[in-house]
């Protein structure tokens, strides 16, 4: 586990999300009312890039595609949301943001595996 530099705290304006490459790990930093969260760059529902489709209001992150949402303060799931948001710990030192990264956090997505070469046979 190491703290990796992500960005300057001023890089992410209040109530916005921005995607960064932290030493090879892609993540999104969310500024919710002046506090920060860092998490994988896609929505755990259907891989939607949250930098583009995430909305932050009243400390709640909502993916605008299918309205899954999380309270960024408590990380509780809201509404129809079915999966928790995975997060990296974040610290701010001298105006710089660092994320505690062991390995990349990823979600399992439904994947229709299996050979379908015999579809018509």
């Amino acid at each position, binding site marked *: 586990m190491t703290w990796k530099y992500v960005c300057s705290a001023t890089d992410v304006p209040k109530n916005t999300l921005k995607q960064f490459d932290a030493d090879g790990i892609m993540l999104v930093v969310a500024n919710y009312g002046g506090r920060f969260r860092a998490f994988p760059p*896609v929505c755990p529902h*259907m*891989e939607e890039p949250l930098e583009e489709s995430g909305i932050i209001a009243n400390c709640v992150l909502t993916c605008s595609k*299918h309205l899954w949402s999380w309270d960024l303060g408590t990380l509780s799931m809201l509404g129809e949301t079915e999966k928790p948001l995975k997060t990296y710990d974040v610290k701010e030192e001298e105006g710089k943001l660092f994320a505690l990264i062991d390995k990349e956090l990823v979600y399992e997505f439904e994947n229709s595996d299996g050979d379908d070469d015999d579809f018509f046979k």
Partner: protein
Amino acid sequence: MVAKTHEQWLANPPLASGEWIDSRIYSDQGIFEEELDKIFKHTWIPVCHESELAKPYDFRTTSIAREPIIVTRGPDNVVRAFLNVCPHRGMLIERRPSGSFMEAQPSGNPKRMTCMFHAWQFDMKGNCVYISREKEGFQDRLTKEDVGLRRLRCEVKFGGFVWVNLDDNPVASLEDWAADAFGALRKTLDAEPLEVFHYHKAIVSTNYKLWHDTNCEFYHDFMHYHNRVTGFNDAYFARKNEAFNHGHIQVGTFEVNYDQYEGFESRAGLSFPHLPPNQWYMVDLFPGMNFNLRGSALRCDIVTPIGPNKVMIEFRGLGLKKDTPEERETRINHHNSIWGPFGRNLHEDLIGVTGQGSTTLPGSESRRVLHGRHENQTIHDENGMRHYYEEWSRWMNRMASDPSKPFTAERHVEVAAAE
């Protein structure tokens, strides 16, 4: 010898049956509709080339016989084809000609096909993976399992072309259907991955069969000054026009003298794998696809019939994927100088078929169009067209020489034995 009265003009020529066709098969709306149903919905059609969807999640859309089609490359690199129609309310799912699903659509997500109408989503195997507010509206009466896309038979073959058949149970596999028409070129087309470097399409006021006829007969080289000065010699006239099962033909090669044409240089420097320079092969497949390999460049025409007197022709030029920039530039130059929109020959061919289109407008009087030349199955023999119309008559159950009569088998053209 003499001009003809109306009655004489309409009489059959003094040729054997099968050596002419009735012009109504180019002009009649009812026959046209039957062709879509009886032929185009049951034969193998190359819809694009695999290099047009080079990366996982790339797609290409097209249509066969008015049915919209989408071809995708899955994360497993398999190319699959589907009807481009949402099972929910019949919306066209993807309306772009090509692109990538790596990027999300406004109402969908990355790596899925999305119907923008109600945000239903499908994966690259055609499975439905998302129904918006599924439980609220359908409870358990209809689930994602019930509403996948219609999968179509699809194969990548003969130089990486993507072939689709709307019939789940075609009369023959693609391999058997092609009947060795690609035989002489197979090694050349399959040695290296090919890549499309040229694409244009034209909507032409003529019948699709007239375009294919022009690709099947070389007698009209009298229209092409270029072909006369670079070709006409003993080897040219000795080329074989060979017929294969299922209505296909292959025209054999000879050495073209490109430097005989003013402004052109020899093209000896660049060829295709396993092929000496300056060769010229042609493969014409029923019901309207043409593969034309002139030494350094491969051209492919695909016809999409729109009406009895309207056809969309898609023209592709291909080289080798591994071409150096210099080789690619040479191939493009060679391709465009003959076949590009401002090329030496293409516009002349279009003058020919639009002239025929002008004389076969819907409602025009039935006439005879002659296909009666016999020259020992060489280049100016019209056996290619006779062979094609025999196949056409079989699929349509109408004689091309008189479409009011049902098909009766009369072999007019000797077919090459399968290997």
